[in-house]
């Protein structure tokens, strides 16, 4: 018995079969139910936990077909077009899923029909089962109109009009129905009756290319697993070669017998179908797992999916060896990305701004190159921008300030620096369109202390114009 607070009262939201036999129904308040049956076993509803369970079930069902969608509440839709024969036909597949779920302690009802809506209606409002092709309409007609999932008000309105079953509706002209109840009803009706078919939107988009292996006996041994993965990769590489494509991303799904699914993703910087390189990345990925692969009671199935493919033409390496070098660097980057993650292997991209804080950013190596060039340094001038930049700038304590000049000495991280040489100011105005008008202008100075350390200091604001006592910051370090 599951209860939840609905309209200020604890009400039953779900009952098991025993409760139904005792005459309890959904929507009854808990107080009424207790009055009828004093020793009720009651559990608080946990929609999030239910959602998690359903998502795990969806992952489990992924082994039967890559197209799995959620069908709330507490339902799953599987598009088994072209998959059923792999599991011995539709009936065998349905029985297998039912068996596996029952073994997991779950009750289920299922239907296989021509359209997702028809299957939904049959499993929830009918007897379930398998609809032979073309007989959807006959099976759906006797179902109540609620099976169309059109909202409680519409159902009541329809039943007041004497339209109790889907069959009653199906005979009416759809123009009249949509004029009275909206286009939605007509659409639902057409889809449920199998007159119109719409694909489901799967939880995980279907990969462009995939290969998989199902085992008769659960696979326990990790070396065996690697052998299987090796063969899958070789097979995928052949498929890709036939298509003239290479994969940018690969995903290995390991389906465990107890329903848990482990997915290992690999990305490459450029399209690849080099089986050895992919296998190396896979090994790298296994090495870097925070929690090692646990076969549990063994793996049922292994799938290699390639979600992203791009055209890849074999080309002759150029004579200067540059292409070979680029290839080697790209492979190294792939390995590093696999090991450390995409946000840790970076390159720099310039941005079109004069604000040193925004001038550059680090982007993942796989990101498209930006068209903005780096400003060329001025010949015969020492560096005017620091090698290292603090973000945010570090406040410093200045001593012996002079207006419109750098301080004579300053203290940073408890060390006093005597300024021996200085250049400035270079005034950098804030970008008011980003920072707002309150941001003060900054006067930058390149300074060098008596030991030869070079710093980039700035004063936030101008003396007596923007604020009384401007603050000083250290923004960067020069070589």
């Amino acid at each position, binding site marked *: 018995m599951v209860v939840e607070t609905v309209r200020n009262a604890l009400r039953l939201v779900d009952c098991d079969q025993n409760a139904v036999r005792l005459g309890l129904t959904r929507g009854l308040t808990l107080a009424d139910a207790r009055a009828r049956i004093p020793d009720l076993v009651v559990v608080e509803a946990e929609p999030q936990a239910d959602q998690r369970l359903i998502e795990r079930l969806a992952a489990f069902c992924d082994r039967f077909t890559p197209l799995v969608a959620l069908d709330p509440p507490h339902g799953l839709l599987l598009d088994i077009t072209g998959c059923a024969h792999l599991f011995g036909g539709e009936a065998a597949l349905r029985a297998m899923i039912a068996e596996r779920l029952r073994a997991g302690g779950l009750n289920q009802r299922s239907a296989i029909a021509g359209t997702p809506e028809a299957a939904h209606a049959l499993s929830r409002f009918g007897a379930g089962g398998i609809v032979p092709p073309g007989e959807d309409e006959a099976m759906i007609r006797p179902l109540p109109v609620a099976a169309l999932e059109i909202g409680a008000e519409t159902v009541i309105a329809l039943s007041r009009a004497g339209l109790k079953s889907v069959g009653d509706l199906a005979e009416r002209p759809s123009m009249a129905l949509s004029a009275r109840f909206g286009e939605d009803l007509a659409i639902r009706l057409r889809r449920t009756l199998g007159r119109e078919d719409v694909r489901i939107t799967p939880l995980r988009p279907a990969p462009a290319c995939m290969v998989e292996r199902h085992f008769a006996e659960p696979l326990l041994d990790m070396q065996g697993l690697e052998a299987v993965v090796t063969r899958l990769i070789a097979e995928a590489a052949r498929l890709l070669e036939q298509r003239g494509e290479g994969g940018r991303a690969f995903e290995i799904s390991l389906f465990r017998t107890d329903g848990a699914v482990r997915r290992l993703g690999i990305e490459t910087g450029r399209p690849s179908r080099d089986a050895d390189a992919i296998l190396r990345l896979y090994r790298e990925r296994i090495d870097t797992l925070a929690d090692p692969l646990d076969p549990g009671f063994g793996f049922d199935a292994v799938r290699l999916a390639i979600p992203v493919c791009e055209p890849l033409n074999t080309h002759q390496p150029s004579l200067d060896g540059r292409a*070979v*070098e*680029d*290839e*080697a*660097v790209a*492979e*190294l*980057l792939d*390995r*590093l990305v696999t*090991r*450390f993650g995409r946000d*840790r*292997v*970076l*390159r*720099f991209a*310039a941005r079109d701004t004069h604000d*040193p804080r925004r*001038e*550059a950013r*680090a982007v993942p*190596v796989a990101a498209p190159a930006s068209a903005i060039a*780096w*400003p*060329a*340094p*001025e*010949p*015969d001038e*020492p*560096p*005017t*921008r*620091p*090698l*290292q*930049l*603090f*973000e945010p700038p570090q406040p410093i304590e200045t001593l012996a300030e002079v207006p419109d000049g750098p301080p*004579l000495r300053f203290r940073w991280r408890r*060390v006093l620096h*005597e300024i*021996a*040489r*200085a*250049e400035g100011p270079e005034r950098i105005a804030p970008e008011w369109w980003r920072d707002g008008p309150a941001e003060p202008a900054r006067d930058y100075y*390149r*300074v*060098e202390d*008596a*030991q*030869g*350390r*070079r710093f980039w200091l700035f004063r936030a604001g101008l003396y007596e114009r923007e604020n009384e006592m401007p603050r000083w910051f250290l923004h*960067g*370090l*020069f*070589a």
Partner: protein
Amino acid sequence: MNPKPAPLALADLRRSLAEAALRTAPAAVGRVSFGAPALDEPLGGGIARAALHEVYAPGTADLAAATGFAVGLTIRAAQMRQVLWVRQDVLDAETGRLHPPGLAELGLDPARILLVRARDAQDVLRAGAEAARCSALGAVLIEPWGEPRLFDLTASRRLALAAEASGVTTVLLRASARQDASAARTRWLVRALPSRALEANAPGDPAFSLRLLRDRGGLGEREWRVEWDRDRQSFHERSAFQERPAFQANPAFHERAGNQGRAQDAAPLSRPLVSFPADGPAAEGARGPGFRRAG
């Protein structure tokens, strides 16, 4: 009609000349030269290309200078190929994050840099070893933070072997007072050096005080004072005659710097630390004018 050459074209020309010089420099085979004869000659044409080299800063304060020196070495070693820089995350807070325009101003094109941000010392070591094995890279810069125990003799030997096998110059950059045993070919201690002031007492080109702490080639401990010339992409030695005290240009600074500043400027010339008798003619000849002038 005599169209003026655009300044940009001139800059391009200079750069392409510098690049051409880099490519065709008559460097000894398998060496990375500094471009400064004073360094290259004793070292036999520069430092070994396929090797691990260590650049130490005596403390965090000099890490920026050490980084600048390492960048210079990297530019000379990479020869327009890509450079992989492994950096530990903590450094971003301690010494600031890398600023690409600043790297460009030192002559290292930011587009050629691949940056790996590592969470901890172990990741730094892993990424560094992986990169050092890739012969297509121009150079690898490895920058861990602090004095992790992981960077022991075994770790450095692994890096050194990887660098030797691939031929990639690998530079380990560290701010640390402690210097562990390592398999590196050379070890440098780099300090910031007061630059030669430009007009109006502005700080000049990056200058470093180098100390070769160890060289497997057999060269003893030595010191040099060098500057980095970005336009020629080379180091050059600073002779004592080029030293210009900070306080000459600006009397105000003179007063403040006082005797301390003089003592700073009186740092010794580049010379061998041992093997010359103090009263010998060679030593006298080398030291005399420098000291007088600075003192």
